């Protein structure tokens, strides 16, 4: 990899932009949720305030090195994911390292964070954390399968595993993969619901049940780092989906619009649905999304 | 230096032993050893001569086909060597094992048995064969009942019962042959057998198969074997497995290859061999007595040998001989080890063997060694003979027996390894370390070393197998030498 100014700019600015957008989207979610519930809701920058507050906590505790490093794993995964996704199409600055990795790499680096967090949560020794991790990993198996099916369908269809190639294919909005391969999109977007962890797939953190699950022993700067990571990761996932299905974006306005529309799908679903149990959600992912995934592959093959 | 010594010396010794017994008990024990040592020396020194050109000895002055001949060919050389060597090892083992009086009877019978079996191997006369057969059998019946307990007597009686069937049928066959072609010389019979009408020939064949099949432990004629093996003293088990059966199967094969060498008979032998093998191994699986288990295993091995003979090609006969050799050694080793194991555990049951591996490390080691060897695992000698049998059977295009042999091998492995596990792993600590007498250990040690050496250099034995196999298969040569043509 060769280092030049555009790379450095990209490395510096992409996470910052991702953080800001992710945090704002998070705040927006809360506002929208509040409005749906006939409330006024917090200010749109509420999540930012929360994160700042968490960072400014004066005392922090951990139960050992792994808990200390757990959020670091998480943010490493988010930022790395972000770096390997072309944020802006054909931009020299915001494509970052997307030529050096491909979809399968992204699939794996995306779970890197969850695993790191799980290790951190494990070390706290809190039974709730362990229960949360158990649920989270089980659910992961659920939604990864249809997601991979969708990706495989797309990879076969366009004979590439690189995101930039996929972007190059979708040069006109009629050629967006969402239209070329709708079943793959369906499978992927249903899996995306699980990936985002909003209701009905929020059994992992289930606040009233297992005290927010894995992060239940995390506070202060650790929780702040986790929330930061979550914001960046949300944005990274949105950009990834935009790139795969919606033809990417050649400027920030388009990017924001597309990602926002995508983002609203899990958010609005989450507002109106109650929670699935773990096995229910796994069975859900292995029913319709899997079916769509199979159809997507079959459509491509024949 | 003549093959007659093989018969004469032990016979003489057998008659001498009761007399010496009046003088010295120790001498009684030593004399068989000296005799067997001498015979071993004799067999080894005669071996190269016999292999190159058969020695035919005429007894009582008449020329064949009228006189009685001894035919010392390659196969006889091989088998006498085997019998005398195994006999020597068995004597070594018996030296301390047979402590029950009257020992002179044991050694006398043992010598008789050696006489009989070497006689079977050597003789060129079918009636003489019968006579030696009777000597062997009667010695064997008595040895079975040697312990003079209820079980031994019962087993001996069963053996006697079935054995008298064998004698009767065999004698009947001889009578029919003689009535038809007026000769008793094997070579002569072989050249004239075609003169007998077909139906009579069939009848003779059936009578011989039954008569000799009983001693060769062919299913379903082997009912006597498990009892006899398990109730007789352990060295006698080794005698049966290592000597008697070998001689019997040799005589069966000799007669079949001389007189009835047709494809159908050979197929029949293969089928019988497979059945014998399978049923024996399956029955052995759930046996509760260790020596009974060994007996069934022995029957199974004989089935294997019968299969290999039945294939009837040169490599397969060679493999069968090799297997006979290995089986004689390994089964003797197993019987020796089992003898002391049973002796020390005080029970014939397998379940009584728990943890003996710690109490009696060396004996148990020999048993385990023998078990691994008889299953056919490399680098022990059993591996090569089994491999050769499989290769030759497959070469003859008989894939089904190959598969069945291997299945039976798996069963064999299972029951042997169960016993080995019991020996070593069912109890943690040694409770009562007892020593096996040195003579027994030496006997087992010799066998172990031979098994290992042959495992690494199978050529050592295989080298001599080719002439032996040819000897068995080459009917014309036998007739030629046997009748001095």
């Amino acid at each position, binding site marked *: 990899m060769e280092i030049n100014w555009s790379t450095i700019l990209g490395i510096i600015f992409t996470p910052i932009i991702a953080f800001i957008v992710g945090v704002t989207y998070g705040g927006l979610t809360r506002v929208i949720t509040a409005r749906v519930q006939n409330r006024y809701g917090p200010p749109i920058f509420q999540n930012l305030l929360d994160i700042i507050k968490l960072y400014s906590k004066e005392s922090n505790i951990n139960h050992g090195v792994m808990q200390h490093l757990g959020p670091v794993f998480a943010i490493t995964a988010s930022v790395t994911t972000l770096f390997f996704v072309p944020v802006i199409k054909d931009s020299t600055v915001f494509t970052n390292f997307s030529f050096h990795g491909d979809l399968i790499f992204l699939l794996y680096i995306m779970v890197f964070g969850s695993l790191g967090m799980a290790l951190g949560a494990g070390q706290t020794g809190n039974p709730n954390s362990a229960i949360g991790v158990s649920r989270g990993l089980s659910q992961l198996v659920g939604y990864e399968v249809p997601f991979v099916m969708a990706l495989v369908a797309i990879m076969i269809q366009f004979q590439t595993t690189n995101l930039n190639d996929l972007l190059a294919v979708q040069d006109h909005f009629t050629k967006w993969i969402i239209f070329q391969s709708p079943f793959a999109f369906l499978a992927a977007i249903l899996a995306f619901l699980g990936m985002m962890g909003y209701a009905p797939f929020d059994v992992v953190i289930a606040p009233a049940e297992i005290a927010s699950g894995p992060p239940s022993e995390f506070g202060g700067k650790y929780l702040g780092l986790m929330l930061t990571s979550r914001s960046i990761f949300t944005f990274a996932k949105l950009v990834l989906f935009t790139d795969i299905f919606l033809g990417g974006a050649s400027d920030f306005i388009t990017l924001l619009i597309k990602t926002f529309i995508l983002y609203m799908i899990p958010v609005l679903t989450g507002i109106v649905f109650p929670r699935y149990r773990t096995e229910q959600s796994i069975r859900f992912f292995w029913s319709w999304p899997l079916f769509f995934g199979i159809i997507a592959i079959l459509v491509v093959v024949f | 230096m003549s093959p007659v010594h093989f018969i004469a010396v032990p016979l003489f010794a057998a008659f001498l032993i009761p007399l010496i017994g009046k003088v010295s008990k120790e001498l009684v024990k030593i004399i068989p050893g000296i005799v067997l040592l001498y015979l071993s020396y004799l067999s080894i020194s005669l071996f190269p001569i016999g292999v190159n050109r058969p020695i035919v000895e005429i007894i009582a002055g008449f020329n064949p086909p009228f006189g009685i001949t001894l035919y010392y060919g390659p196969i006889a050389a091989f088998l006498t060597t085997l019998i005398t060597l195994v006999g020597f090892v068995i004597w070594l083992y018996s030296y301390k094992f047979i402590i029950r009086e009257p020992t002179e009877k044991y050694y006398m019978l043992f010598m008789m048995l050696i006489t009989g079996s070497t006689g079977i191997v050597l003789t060129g006369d079918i009636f003489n064969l019968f006579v030696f057969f009777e000597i062997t059998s009667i010695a064997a019946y008595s040895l079975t009942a040697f312990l003079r307990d209820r079980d031994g007597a019962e087993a001996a009686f069963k053996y006697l019962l079935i054995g008298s069937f064998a004698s009767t049928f065999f004698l009947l066959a001889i009578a029919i042959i003689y009535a038809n072609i007026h000769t008793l010389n094997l070579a002569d019979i072989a050249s004239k057998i075609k003169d007998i009408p077909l139906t009579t020939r069939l009848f003779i064949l059936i009578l011989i198969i039954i008569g000799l099949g009983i001693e060769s432990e062919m299913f379903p004629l082997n009912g006597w074997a498990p009892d006899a093996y398990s109730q007789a003293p352990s060295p006698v088990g080794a005698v049966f497995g290592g000597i008697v059966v070998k001689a019997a199967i040799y005589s069966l094969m000799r007669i079949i290859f001389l007189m009835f060498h047709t494809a159908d008979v050979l197929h029949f032998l293969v089928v019988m061999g497979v059945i014998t093998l399978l049923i024996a191994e399956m029955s052995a699986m759930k046996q509760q007595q260790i020596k009974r288990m060994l007996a069934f295993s022995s029957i199974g091995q004989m089935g294997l040998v019968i299969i290999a003979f039945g294939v009837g090609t040169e490599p397969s006969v060679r493999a069968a001989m090799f297997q006979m050799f290995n089986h004689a050694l390994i089964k003797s080793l197993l019987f020796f080890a089992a003898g002391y194991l049973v002796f020390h555990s005080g029970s014939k049951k397998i379940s009584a063997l728990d943890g003996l591996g710690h109490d009696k490390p060396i004996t148990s080691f020999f048993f385990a060694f023998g078990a691994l060897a008889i299953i056919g695992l490399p680098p022990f000698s059993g591996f090569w003979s089994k491999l050769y049998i499989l290769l030759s059977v497959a070469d003859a295009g008989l894939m089904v027996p190959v598969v069945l042999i291997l299945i039976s091998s798996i069963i064999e492995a299972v029951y042997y390894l169960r016993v080995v596990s019991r020996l070593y792993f*069912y109890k943690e600590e040694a409770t009562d370390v007892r020593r096996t007498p040195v003579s027994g250990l030496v006997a087992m040690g010799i066998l172990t070393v031979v098994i290992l050496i042959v495992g690494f250099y199978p050529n050592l034995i295989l080298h001599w197998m080719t002439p032996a196999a040819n000897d068995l298969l080459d009917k014309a040569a036998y007739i030629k030498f046997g009748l001095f043509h």
Partner: protein
Amino acid sequence: MNSIEYILFITFIGAGLTFIVHHALPKLRDTLAILVSALDLYFVIQAISEKSKVVLSIADFHLIWKTTPYNNLFAVLIAVLGFLTILYAHDFMSSKDRLGYFYMNFLFALGGMYGIVYSQDFISLFFFWEIMTWASFLLVIYCCKDAQPIGLKYFVFSAIGAYSLLIAIVMLYSLSGNLELTNLISNFSNFSVSNQLIVVTLLLLGFGVKSAIMPLHVWAPGAYFISPSPFTALFSGALSKMGIFGIGLVLFKFAAQSGYFSYVQIILAWIGGITALLATFYAIFQTDAKKLLAYSSIGQLGYIIIGLAIGTPLSIASALFLTILHAAFKAMLFMATGAVYFRTGTTDMNSVSGLIRKMPFSFITALFGIITVSGVPPLGGFAAKWMLYESLIQSRHYFLVIVVFAASTAAFLYLYRFIFSLFLGQEEKEWEDVKEAPLLMVIPMLILSAFVLVVGVFPGLILDPISQSMNYLGNFNFNYETSVLFNEWGNQVDMQTVVNTIGAVFLIVGLIITFKGFKKTRYVSTKDIHTSGEIPQENENLTYAVDFYKPFERAIAPILKSSIDKIYTGIANNLEQAFDYLRYVYTGNGQTYAMYVVFFLSLLILFAELIFGINL
């Protein structure tokens, strides 16, 4: 003497000597074993450059041993792993008895493996295959009474495998009169199609048993579980690879010559896929760490078999890469588990917990191990998985890739459970006095950890010998650089960029979070957790370990209902019953026996002409 002779000679003589030395000079025993394995390692490396060949005539056969790139690959794997495990065994086994037995069989197993990998004919291969089998069997039953049925199961399955090999060998011999590999390979296309099919099936079956493919895997969990940990590492890492070695040989040297190769490939690949998936599912619900790893091992071998079966250059590369890597990481995991066992006396995941601060190095090893198994970058597992997926997708095995991916995702579950149960979680008072394993146990673990890290960054280091051995297997070429992997479509993953990014971000954020509020960040014990205000008592167990994946179990309950193991047990029991009845053929009654004789006589007389024919 050349290197191969040295290797075989030293190993076997060494094995015997160790046994003797154990009784004469117990102190020298371990040193001798280590020395033997070290010499082996030296000569194995020597053999690579030497290109040695040994021909030994034994009993009409020419036994040939030769170095080829493919052989060397496996030989080095065995030698390195053998050396490390023996090093590890020194302390691990120190409190056990019957060490002469242990080391002798250990070295016999090693020697058997060397014999297998260098062999160029089937007799020597089978010869050493059997030696390896019984040596490993004796080690499986080494521990205790409980091991006996397990060991017997292992032996029976091994025997089934070995004998199907033997049938194939015997068939090959009867077909071509020769058992030298080169001859057989060149003659193979002359055989009839059905013979080819039977031979290939039997050979695959034989090798498949050792690599525990799915319907034949039932021996593996128990055997891995019960054998002593140093050997388990070798068992799973190297011994099971002998199956892979054979499968590779059979597939590309024999099966590839025939027309039905593609069917064999597809069937084998799917068997591998199902193996991977089901073994993973079974692994998730194990409560014992070693059993979990055993099932994991079965699953990983499933991936390797898929890679071999697909048969594209990239997939073979991935399979061989995974072979080496699996040896490393499974050895690491078994060693870490062994270290836990060494200190706590159990590997039950429901009872051990919270050892991370007591056994940091074991934890790091286990962590590296699970990251490698899971295939998460930046460690070596990623490269292997990546190549496997890419090759599967590009060779149009779409549904197989889904199965593999599902298996590999589900693998996270058991991996997490493994490390969580042993090292993370509550630090119980019961394990307060636990210390880190001795140095000689830690060193092999750390060496392997370093290895997987290096391989993760520079997969090309290993891909060099792999591509050489692939050239030996057939004309397989694929594209790679030291740290860049390419698929057939030309897409790439630059491991160095990945590692740099991950490393940089991790370092920066890690430093920030460490130094932010450093003084007021404090460590609290795992008893000080949120328990709704309740104060945990000392004897109160807060560990969540039992039924860890109950929800998942409920979700996949239908799959788990039937177990292959039960079927086999049923068959075995029924057979034993049948045998038990059969033995009453021998009633012990003289009259019956006489009856048999008479029956047989009349049977023969009745059907005499039918049986013996008329041309007597």
